[in-house]
């Protein structure tokens, strides 16, 4: 049993809803219509493109192809983490830091899931590898960007307090322990909340998709549980590594707070 295919007409009807929303936004001067149009267009183009890529990928299924696609996904996620920072590290440091943390966490967790838990032959079967990695990257990206943003913003506001603690003989690590803890919390809260609410408030997207695709609900549920655990672990490890690396960058070898490492972006999202 497959999914009932959607025709272009079906999608146009859904698009009409957005057009109505856009008109209403213009009428009410909400100023959302332009962003709404751009992002609706982006989602259409990007997803159609990735559909084509996946079609080719699933037909070939070579490891090199899978690795290449994963690297592109990682690079884009890294850029996105940077774009969401109000105060970001100067130069390529911030990109490297976010991307490195996502690489460590998402890739290792995805590898364990693919090679040990799901254990397909071959383990990198793209029908499993790419969606799994995509979900992991998407979530760690959110977690890491939230916690980095929180950390740099709080440090910026509390720099005198942090320096006061340094003056009393604390190391940079000690002086920022509480700030780091709060930043990690804010990165982890979304996944913790969605684990707590899963199934009660909403059916998670992947499970919905599997059910629509004809899987039995219990199979779908088991995969969803797996994904939740992987996302929580991946986000947690990613956030911790990002906070550790960020602390190291923001203090020099003499435990001096170096906020000039941060660059304030004029337009933050």
């Amino acid at each position, binding site marked *: 049993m497959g999914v009932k295919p959607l025709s272009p007409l079906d999608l146009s009807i859904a698009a009409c809803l957005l057009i109505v929303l856009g008109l209403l936004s213009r009428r009410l001067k909400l100023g959302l219509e332009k962003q709404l149009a751009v992002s609706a267009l982006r989602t259409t183009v990007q997803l159609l493109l990735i559909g084509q890529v996946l079609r080719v990928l699933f037909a070939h299924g070579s490891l090199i192809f899978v690795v290449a696609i994963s690297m592109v996904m990682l690079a884009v996620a890294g850029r996105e983490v940077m774009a969401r920072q109000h105060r970001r590290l100067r130069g390529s440091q911030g990109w490297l830091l976010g991307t490195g943390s996502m690489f460590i966490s998402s890739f290792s967790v995805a590898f364990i899931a693919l090679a040990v838990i799901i254990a397909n032959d071959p383990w990198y079967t793209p029908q499993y590898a790419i969606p799994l990695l995509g979900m992991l990257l998407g979530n760690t990206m959110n977690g890491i960007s939230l916690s980095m943003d929180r950390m740099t913003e709080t440090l910026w506001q509390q720099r005198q307090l942090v320096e006061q*603690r340094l003056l009393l*003989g604390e190391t940079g690590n000690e002086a920022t322990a509480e700030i780091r803890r709060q930043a990690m919390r804010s990165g982890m809260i979304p996944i913790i909340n969605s684990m707590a609410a899963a199934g009660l408030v909403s059916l998670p997207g992947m499970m919905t998709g599997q059910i629509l695709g004809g899987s039995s609900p219990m199979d779908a549920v088991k995969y969803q549980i797996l994904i939740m655990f992987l996302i929580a672990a991946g986000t947690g490890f990613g956030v911790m590594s990002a906070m550790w690396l960020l602390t190291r960058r923001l203090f020099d070898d003499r435990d001096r707070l170096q906020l000039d490492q941060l660059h304030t972006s004029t337009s933050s999202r």
Partner: protein
Amino acid sequence: MNDLQLSNLIFQGRGPYNLRLVSGRITGLQGASGAGKTLLLRAIADLDPHQGEVQLGDMICAQVPAASWRKTVGLLPAESFWWFDMVGEHFQSPGQDLTGQLQQLGFEPDVLHWEVSRLSTGEKQRLAIVRLLQNHPRALLLDEPTASLDAANIERTETMLVAYCRQQQVPLLWVSHDPLQLERVADVEYYLENDGTLKQVRGEQHGR
């Protein structure tokens, strides 16, 4: 001797500064605002990047971990900051000398159970001095330690800081905007010019 010696200290385009702060003596420092007094203290405490060397007795700043240096060379900033809710949480080991120091500055021991958010600026400033002295610093750098205090508390604070300097035989650098205060407490006085030059205005020549 436990003197604090600055050798060719350069920071943010200022200096080089060569200065010897003699242990057990109070060195007063005045200067126009913006002349870099606070920056000088921060460089000595190794809180800002600098060139040149700072040495306390045999202890060379660059050769010890930054945290131990700052515990040993205590800097009191002009404004104090507190991060826990209660005063007492900022003090690690409540002991005899803590109670004594609190009393010298006009506090009852129960001040430790006060909430930080209820402290006045002057109370914070006096408590910050006690908090700093609890580290048993071997040198003191004070940035306007009595700026927001009333006359009675200024006197208490001066008495206590002078006594710490003499009894513990530590070098003490005292930044103040009040020439009369420096006349009361300081053994030697320096003036920091707007262009960053440091000149001795009172006391016998020593240093280099």
